[in-house]
């Protein structure tokens, strides 16, 4: 780490000290960090420029939605960023988490399980099941992560990618066509909203309980993710990503480690699924298309693979571009009466702008917004000695690392 600091400006050194402190007191720094972000966002949403765009409540709702993607990005980062397994079907686990919640928390789901629960208790009670269901959703998704991961583990690199992509397609098709147990294309509605003992069932109109719960869930998940990555297992994953043969020669059962990466990544998606389902109070197969998998992958790559704070920021940025910025461009230029731009229908240009944004961001920062320290080191070597050979080795290493 010491070698990397080539130009010790005060900013760089301060940043480095911050990084050191945060890595020594990881859990506290996460709690503090999330608390700061969690306080700043509502304040921003409550002051003029932002309130005038959309009401504070809508902002809060948007932040909570973004939180779902932050969770997904953290989970996928475990698989892609840390363990180096390219997963293109991550939405499958998101779906599994959501449907898991629907079985316990909806009348239709209850009838499939053969129990009577949601219909007979009050919403304030039924909603309590949300909290344990976060865990159950995680476990069920992890189980499916193992089930779907098992046949793929002999595969290398992009073969793995296509198989995961296949599962990402198969799972929604199963939910779509297995009418008897999933209500098919109609999806499952009438899910119980989460509830807490004193405040009762959450309301669609008050975004605060969802927002605060989301902050807590993100903080806990991120804390656990960091603890995991800094453990023996996390080291094993990084070793596999760098050099699978050497990892095996160090005694790591690469198969089990990869399977665990799949399972744990999936469990995070399961949590996100439960949360999202409890917020939308409906699950249907069209919530879990390939585009979700891809969006989350873009968030991870853009944020900086391997860095959990980075991918969280990546998730937030892409969500904001895609679901907020691109949606308000029309009104924006209408209002400023900008000569030519106001006549353009930006809603029709969303794809184009989003595509351009992705290409531009990747060209501008190929290693992501906040690459983790290892990858930065990698890049640093390439930059200080920009000889042809050095570039080639950097590339070779990074290729090696991805597989």
């Amino acid at each position, binding site marked *: 780490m010491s070698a990397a600091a080539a130009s010790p400006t005060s900013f760089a050194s301060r940043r480095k000290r911050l990084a050191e402190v945060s890595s020594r007191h990881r859990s506290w720094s996460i709690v503090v960090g999330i608390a700061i972000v969690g306080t700043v966002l509502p304040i921003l949403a409550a002051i003029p420029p932002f309130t005038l765009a959309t009401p504070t409540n809508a902002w809060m709702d948007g932040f909570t939605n973004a939180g779902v993607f932050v969770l997904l990005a953290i989970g996928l980062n475990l698989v892609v960023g840390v363990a180096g397994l390219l997963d293109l079907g991550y939405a499958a686990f998101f779906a599994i988490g959501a449907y898991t919640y629907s079985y316990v928390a909806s009348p239709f789901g209850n009838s499939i399980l053969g129990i009577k629960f949601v219909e007979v208790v009050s919403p304030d009670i039924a909603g309590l099941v949300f909290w344990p269901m976060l865990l159950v959703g995680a476990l069920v998704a992890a189980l499916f992560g193992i089930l779907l991961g098992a046949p793929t583990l002999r595969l290398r690199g992009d073969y793995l990618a296509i198989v995961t992509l296949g599962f990402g397609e198969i799972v929604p098709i199963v939910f779509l066509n297995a009418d008897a147990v999933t209500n098919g294309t109609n999806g499952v509605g009438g899910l119980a909203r989460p509830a807490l003992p004193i405040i009762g069932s959450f309301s669609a109109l008050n975004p605060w309980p969802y927002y605060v719960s989301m902050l807590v869930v993100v903080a806990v998940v991120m804390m656990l993710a960091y603890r995991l990555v800094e453990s023996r297992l996390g080291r094993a994953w990084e070793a596999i990503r760098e050099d699978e043969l050497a990892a095996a020669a160090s005694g790591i059962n690469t198969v089990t480690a990869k399977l665990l990466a799949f399972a744990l990544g999936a469990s995070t998606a399961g949590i996100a699924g439960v949360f999202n389902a409890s917020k939308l109070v409906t699950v249907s197969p069209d919530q879990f298309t390939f585009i979700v998998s891809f969006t989350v992958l873009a968030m991870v790559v853009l944020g900086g693979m391997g860095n959990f704070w980075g991918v969280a920021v990546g998730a937030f940025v892409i969500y904001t*571009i895609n679901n907020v910025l691109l949606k308000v461009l029309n009104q924006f230029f209408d209002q400023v009466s900008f000569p030519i731009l106001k006549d353009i229908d930006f809603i029709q240009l969303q794809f184009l702008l989003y595509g351009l944004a992705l290409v531009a961001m990747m060209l501008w920062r190929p290693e992501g917004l906040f690459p983790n320290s290892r990858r930065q080191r990698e890049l640093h070597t390439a930059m200080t000695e920009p000889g042809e050979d050095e570039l080639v080795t950097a590339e070779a290493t990074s290729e090696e690392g991805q597989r």
Partner: protein
Amino acid sequence: MKLARVGAALAAAAIVVSACGGSSGGNKVLTIGISFPLSGSSLASAGPARDGALLAIKDFTLAGYTIKTTIFDHAVNGSHDPQQGSKDMTTLVADPTVVGVVGPFNSSIAKVQIPISNEAGLLQCSPANTNPDLTKGDAGKQLRAKAPDKINYVRVATTDDIQGPAVATYGIKTLNLKSVAIIDDTETYGKGIADAFAAEWTKLGGTVVGREGAPKGTTDYTAILTKFAAAKPDAVFYGGVTSTGGGLVRKQMEQSGLTGLAYLGGDGIQDGNGSTDGGYISIAGAAAANSFSSVAAIHDIPGAADFAAKYKAEYKVDLGSYSASGYACAQIILQAIKTAAAKGDVTREAVRAAATDTATKFDTVLGPVSFDAVGDTSQKIISMYKVDMTAAGGKGDWIFDYQVDYK
């Protein structure tokens, strides 16, 4: 640092957007929200509905009030996104000036929006939802969990369980068809109407000789159609809309030995004449002859021709499949606003109450409409149309055949 830059961009956007708020000239501002999937392929069907609604709102004036519209597109990366739909509805209910919403378009979006608008008591009128589960029975009640008896969601389209059987009856009784092969697009509307059609068809003594599904995005139907051809049906029923394959199926029937067979469908393929871009007749071309479809409206509405002309003058294109429904929804909301204004202050609750009053009859471009106890249209007249390839200057058009009241 990047976040800061994005934040700055956001702030700039927000400042500008903000300028649209506030009241104008002492009038009370009322906002009508429009919530549709408006980008990607969804635009093909939802765009006309939006344009129809905007046309109705544009012409409307009410002394003392300024009517504004706010349009939300909940298509993300090309297809309707429930999470975005829910966020848009949250945004709409959070704005106190919003008194009614035209939308949504897809059932899966309705399922996430209705619980929110129901809790807020905000009137929603969908021009296109036909899934019975959105209003009726336990499923409907579950969506209105917070206020089950305070209906806030109405729709001008007749549900699948009426339209599907209507087409079946027409096929058996009027066209004297015996056997049918059914294909649907696996979406909520397509599968729903196909199921309802199949049930009624069998009940009326017809036989269903094939039932297949092909998800949207399918371009090759030859395998399914070749299979159908072997069963020698009298007709093919398509459950779905043109953009998910209605025209393609018809076009490929030629290649697969099903030339000239009768082709039945719901209102999903009733979308303009042979010169409408992307419409059923223009895609199927000459093969469109001998096609039949239903529309959940009376045929002979006095204002209809007038509306079509006005629409064409405004947008320079012919009516799309849901233009009239979008227009009708806006008409209903506007009329409810008028009623509320006549009674007192126009509040969200007053508009909702006015619109869902089962005694009120709304004069719309679809004919007189009123709503039953769950918010479904009581207008249960289904009109049947068939394609006449000599109409519309030889390009082909849907010609009214007959209508039945399914009350």
